[in-house]
């Protein structure tokens, strides 16, 4: 049950997108997200959807798998949609008492909804096609220049690597403890909010104890291998830009130009 969460998960593959340098993909995702905020009408979204569809097509990640990742954030999308629908002033379409749906409200609701969905799909594509370790390597490299002004880029990246690395471990641990308590008759699914919150105690306490144990073991194992931060560390797989990355960069620039042109010309 708990393993079905796909947000932030890696989808193994050998596609062109998978093979891109992580730095290219991080910058590309960032550019895409910024571009989404430049868009001011649905025609712009059409360009964004086309770009996204192209990337999804090349990556060969099934669409159903990507859409499954939207499930956990569905409530947020719905909330944004409803707030926009009721809270925008303008020409009234339907109204019940103080609840009024306006033409502008409906437009805004759809506009924000589409933007949010595209934001989530765009950023989840990054994690779907990039191994967590590569992702943090990329982030560390991109943050590299900031080391000069005292930003602990390596330490931040290492913390992120460890956090990402232990998500599946903790999920597995949660699953195991949940099953063990269910075998003792624990019920996590029924009752009101207070009862459900209380029923989490038998899950959370062992989980915290496990997490501390794992953290301590890991710290000890790292120390035993003389780990001491980023100075002079080399990598097993050094990152290098290839022709692919320049092509991707070209595509990105083309995409931004299209978005900007659409914004200013139409």
């Amino acid at each position, binding site marked *: 049950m708990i393993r079905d969460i796909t947000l932030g998960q890696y989808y*193994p593959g050998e596609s062109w997108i998978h093979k891109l340098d992580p730095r290219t993909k991080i910058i590309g995702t960032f550019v895409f997200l910024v571009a989404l905020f430049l868009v001011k009408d649905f025609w712009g979204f059409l360009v964004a959807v086309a770009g996204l569809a192209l990337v999804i097509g090349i990556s060969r990640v099934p669409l159903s798998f990507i859409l499954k990742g939207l499930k956990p954030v569905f409530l947020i999308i719905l909330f944004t949609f409803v707030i926009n629908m009721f809270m925008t002033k303008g020409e009234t379409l339907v109204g019940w008492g103080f609840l009024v749906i306006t033409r502008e409200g409906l437009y805004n609701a759809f506009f924000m909804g589409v933007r949010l969905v595209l934001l989530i799909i765009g950023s989840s594509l990054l994690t779907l096609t990039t191994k967590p370790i590569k992702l943090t390597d990329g982030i560390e490299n991109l943050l590299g220049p900031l080391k000069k002004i005292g930003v602990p880029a390596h330490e931040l990246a290492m913390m992120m690597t460890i956090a990402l690395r232990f998500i599946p471990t903790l999920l597995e641990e949660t699953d195991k403890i949940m099953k063990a308590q269910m075998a*003792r*008759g624990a019920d996590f699914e029924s009752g009101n909010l207070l009862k459900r919150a209380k029923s989490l105690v038998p899950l959370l306490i062992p989980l915290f104890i496990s997490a501390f144990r794992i953290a301590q073991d890991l710290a000890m194992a790292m120390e035993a291998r003389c780990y001491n931060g980023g100075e002079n560390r080399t990598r097993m797989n050094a990152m290098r830009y290839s022709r692919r990355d320049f092509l991707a960069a070209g595509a990105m620039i083309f995409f931004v130009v299209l978005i900007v042109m659409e914004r200013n010309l139409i």
Partner: protein
Amino acid sequence: MSIEVKNITHIYSEGMPYESVALQEVSFSVADGEFVGIIGHTGSGKSTLVQHLNGLLKPKSGAIFIGDVDITGEKVLMRDIRRRIGLVFQYPEYQLFEETVHKDVAFGPINLGLSEEETDHRVREAIGLVGLDYQELAERSPFELSGGQKRRIAIAGVIAMKPEVLILDEPTAGLDPRAHKEILDMIRSIHSTEKNITLLISHNMNDIAALSDKVLVMERGQVAMMGTPREVFSKGAELKKMGLALPPAAEFMDRMKEKGFPAETSVLTKEEALEALLFQLKDNREQVVQ
């Protein structure tokens, strides 16, 4: 009370690129009061199988009858299944969470909706059954006990639910020899007092040979063999092909035979091996005298 498993199949992460078939058309049955040992290489589906038996996992197809109830049915109440089938996971000490030993063992019985009196009674009984002293431990925190004690308290938490079927998944993993023997003796005595069906997953063939009425051998999600320990452990070559070992005594006799000594190979314990060897030697001497 019996268990009847019919053609169950289970697939993990179905429809994903990394889906894997964990169980394939598994069928077997267990009669009332039997002690069944389950062996198999890591990843052969043992743990997946036992999680089906108390409804934690649902099979993709097939049926599981506990007594005359099919627990894969839609209308079955999970609470009733878990009352009847107790499952002790690997490293059960990691599920302890309460402030005191008493409260932790009482967690199961309270979830079953038992009265305070009955719960209290069962907790005392269960802690006694696992060979610990209630007076001494009841009010202590489960986290300050030793590893072996923690594990026994965790097992007591399941036994206190008085299950008709008790399933233990590698209950002795990671324990020192002394704690290992204590847990094993405990399992034996619980089985003889409670007269329930017991299923034991273990990699220790000696334990399996000593305790089981029947042995179930799993291989790649399928039942490879099922029979009495004597039947199963007489097929040494097949077991070794699956990456499994023989009990030490059987292994010893097997090697003796390889060396040309006319040894009896269907022994399970060291006592039986000794007896067989002495018998053989006596026989030899009589032949020489004649």
